[in-house]
Structure formats: C-alpha cells, structure tokens
C-alpha cells in the first residue's frame, strides 16, 4: 500500500484530503510546514509527496530543492500559484506533476495513480511516450524535450500523441483528424499541415530539418523514435 505525505499548512485540507486518499486505498501522513515535511521524509520514506508552495518555515520551492538533493521520490505540487514561471521553476527542480487549487479530488487521485505508475519500472509505458529525448506524459499532459518543459496547445498535444502512439507507423491525415477532433470532422478539418508546421516550431530544435516529426510524402506523418 503506497504511503503519501501531504505537506501543507492548511490543516482542513490535509485532514480532508488525507481521509479521501485513505478511502482510495493509500496510507497518508501530513506535515504542516517544510521543516516538519523534511523530517517526515527521512523518518517514513513515503512513496509520493503532495507539496504546497506557500508555507511557513521553509516554503515549498525550498523544501522541493532540499528533497531533490537527497531523494527521487515522486512529488506533486499542490498549490494556488498558477503563474507560469512558478510552474516552470517547479518542473525544472524536478516535480512530477503540478496541480493548482482548487482541484477536483477525483482528478488528483488519477494523477497520483499516474505518477506512482510512472515510477513503477515494470510498467514504464502506461503513461509515457518517447521519441529519443522527447517525452510525453499522457496523464499530466506534459511534454519534455531533453528535460525542458514545452508548452503545447491541447490540440497540438493530441496531435503529437496521436502520432507518437503509433511510433514507426505512418499516420494518415484522416486518421489524425479522427483521433484529434473526432470521426464527425473527417473531411471537415482542413489545413492539417498548418497544425503540424506550428507543432514543429515548438518541439523541433530546428523545424526546417525535423528530428522527431516526419512527413511521408503522399501518406501522412510519422515519428522517428
């Protein structure tokens, strides 16, 4: 049974969330600030940490830095900070997911499940697609290239995953429209090339000489794994 450590100064939330996660089959512990959180990590060695940012006695970012110096335990940030620089900084410091308050408990449970499964080396592919150093985390909807977080639109994310799921195969434009927009839009959505062109601008280091996303003339697109 996986143990989850909740580090948050909001006691009402830690109690409620703790009870909910126990109901989902996890064991939980909570700590009300960064110091207590670090102590609990050394004592209990949890399987996953939910970490708030705004806390007294060592804030979440500082706590995260300290944890990453000694441990690779999966961490999900649980915070009211939605600003992009805070999100990017957290990812660069090595968090596995980032959830903003207010959040749905059911969605958080799904993300916890995904992150724990990602850490399970026996089943690495369930939540992850790879093409060389390009990694797509399906449940958290994050794309990383060489560790750097890329910002894609939801459509671009779906387009990329639709091609990467069939790694090595050429995916036709009709199949792409079917998977990304739905069967009813096959023949309705034109200009797929424009979506691909803009996607390349975001994922390729040199979009004019693609490294990941290839166009097979007259057939469709394929990912170079």
């Amino acid at each position, binding site marked *: 049974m996986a143990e989850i450590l909740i580090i948050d100064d909001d006691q*009402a939330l830690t109690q409620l969330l703790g009870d909910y996660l126990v109901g989902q089959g996890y064991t939980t512990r909570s700590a009300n600030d960064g110091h207590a959180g670090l102590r609990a990590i050394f004592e209990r060695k949890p399987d996953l940490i939910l970490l708030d940012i705004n806390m007294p006695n060592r804030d979440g970012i500082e706590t995260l830095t300290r944890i990453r110096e000694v441990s690779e335990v999966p961490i999900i940030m649980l915070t009211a900070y939605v*600003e992009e620089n805070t999100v990017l900084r957290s990812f660069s410091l090595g968090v596995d997911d980032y959830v903003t308050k207010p959040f749905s408990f059911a969605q958080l449970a799904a993300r916890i499940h995904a992150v724990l499964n990602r850490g399970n080396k026996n089943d690495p592919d369930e939540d992850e697609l790879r093409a060389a150093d390009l990694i797509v985390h399906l449940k958290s909807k994050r794309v990383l290239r060489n560790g750097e977080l890329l910002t894609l639109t939801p459509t671009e994310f779906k387009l990329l995953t639709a091609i990467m799921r069939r790694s090595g195969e050429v995916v036709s434009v009709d199949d792409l429209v079917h998977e990304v927009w739905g069967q009813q839009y096959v023949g309705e959505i034109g200009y797929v090339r424009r979506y691909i*062109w803009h996607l390349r601008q975001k994922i390729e280091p040199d979009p*004019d000489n693609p490294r990941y996303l290839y166009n097979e003339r007259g057939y469709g697109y394929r990912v170079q794994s």
Partner: protein
Amino acid sequence: MTGGIEPLDEKFRHWRDPRFILRIIQIVLPLTLFGIVFASEAQEHLSGGLLSEGSHFVTEVLFFGVLGPAFLYLVFSYIQKLMKEQIEAKDKVEKLNLDLEALCASRTEALEQRNVELIKANNELKELDHMKSDFVALVSHELRAPLTVLNGSLEIAVQQAEALPLPTRRILEVMARESDRLTRLVQTILDLSQLEAGKLPLTLGPVAVLPILEHVAESVLVHSDRPVKWDVEKDLPPVWADETYMEEIVSNLVRNADKYSKPHRPIHFTVRADKGYVSISVIDHGPGIPSEIKDHLFERFYRGKSFENTTPGWGLGLYFARKLAEAQGGIITLRSPCWEDENGPGAQFTVTLKISEIPEGKEEAEEGSHGRDLNHR
C-alpha cells in the same frame, strides 16, 4: 586701477554706429563744400581782378557755397531720419522677439512643470494599478485554499449523497453549483488581474473553430432545450488563438445569449472567413441592447440598469471576453437589433480572430522536402 583706462574698442565704439558717421558726414561735407566753393570763387575773382564785381562773388558764394551744402545737409537729415525710423522699428521687433522668447520660455517651463507633474501622477497611477493587481492576485490565491476544501468536501459529500434524504441532497447540489460559480469567479478575477498586468500566459497555436463552437454549444446548453442554428462557411481555416481562452470567450457569449433569450428561441452561430480573419458571431433573440449602453457594455463591472435586478452576474464576463480577445490579437463587436421583431430584436456578438497562417515561402519548402497533406484544401 582698471577703471581709468578705457579700452581702445570702447573708445571708438561710436565709429561703428552708422548714425554717428552719417552725422559727421552731414556736418563735414557741407562745410567742406562751402570751403571749396568759397576758396575757388575767391581765387577766381582775385585772379581776374574782378573785385569790382563783389556783388557777383557774394551771390555765387551764397548760391553755390551755401544753398548747395544746405541742400546736402537737408538730404542727410532726411536719410538720418529714415535710418532712425528703421533702427527704431528694428529695436521694436527685437524687443518683441525678446518678449516672445521670454513668454515662450515661461510657457515651456510651465509645460515642463506640468509634464513632470503628469509623469509623477502617471507613475503613482501605475503604482496603484500594480498594487491593485498584486492585491487581487493575493486575494485570489488566498481564496483558492478555502475553495479547495469547500469543493473537496462537497465532492465527497455528493459522491455519498444517495444515502441522504432528498432535501439534503438538493441542498448539497445547490451548494456544489454555487461553489463552482464562486470558483469560476475567483478564476476570472485572477485571470483578469494577470491579463491587465500583461502576465496571463497564453498558449497560442492554430485552433479549429467548428469543434470548439460545437463543444461550447453542447456544454453550455446541456440543460436547455434551446435550438441552435448553424451557418458556418465551408473550408474554414484554423484561427491563431489560445484554445482554452477562445472557448472561454465563446462560452461567455453563449451563456449571455442563453441567459437573456426567452425559452425555446434559437441561438445562431454564424462563422465567416475574410481578409485574414475569421469572424464568429453568436446571435440571440433576446431583448436587444439599448444604444445608450452599447458603448459601456464591455467595461469592467458594467451592468445595464434593466438587468441589474433581474439577472445574476458581476459585470465581468464581457469585459473579460474583450480583454481575452484583444490579448489574442482579436476584437469583439456588438450589433443590436438584429431582427425585425419587437419582442426579441436580439443582439449579435462577434469575436474576430486572425487566421493561423504559415509564413510565406515556408509552405512550399515543406511540401518540396517532406510531401504534402492528404486532404489539404
């Protein structure tokens, strides 16, 4: 010591004044002429032994030696008078110029002073605006924590609601709905404060219009039996937008159309592409927008008086929609009335966004090197 010695330049200063030189000439020239005439007449009469003709001598000296120089003297006086008038006019113009320059300088100084005051006031306003944005962001952050607990509790309670009596279940549903509304409002306020501070992160990319519109119509009108009428141009190109916020704009317009229209009257979606832009119109059969409030409708916290007591709302939706559209390089416009129907003249809100293009020259390069789309139209 130095006071006793007059500099050479200062000593001959008069000689640089044309009036002084003219005055000298005016006196010296007639006297010289008189001297020459007198001398030449005297020599002429003496050498010719014409002393007897003394009366002629006096007459000639008077005529040539006195009248001539006197005439010259008068001419020079006249020239001097003209010169004096000219110099006085010049002095007057110079004085006027100096006055004007002084006036200009004082006005410029006043203007600079005003500018400094305006810059100061502007900086104070910016500072205030910054403080307001920080305050709003702080409050929104602080509200998010209790909202998480509130929403989480309701989520768990609603999951177990089947075991509860019906009235309690209904209360829980109302609470969950209102909590959702509050969450949306806090999110809107936070987004707005970031948008106004230029800090709202937009993830821009090509967006297919029709799926977004159909999704919005489906989700906003999920509990409504209101018909939807579509008039969408064929082969619509994608627009350049942030999908989430574009959906937010259209949802806002559809929510308004639904809120202000009578039951069973349709909502129309009209989409056109023209000159690099796609226009998405949401048209209702509501009471229309009176012309006196049209200009204010997109302002922050503005609510038409006729709607204040009848319809819930904060007056933020259209302002947020306008700011979001502008942040994505688009605009929102309003037309009302739309129908010749006294009971439902309706309103048409149109959001116009740029078409997502590939830079010129790049499309061909891609086609040449990597092929082409199968259903590219």
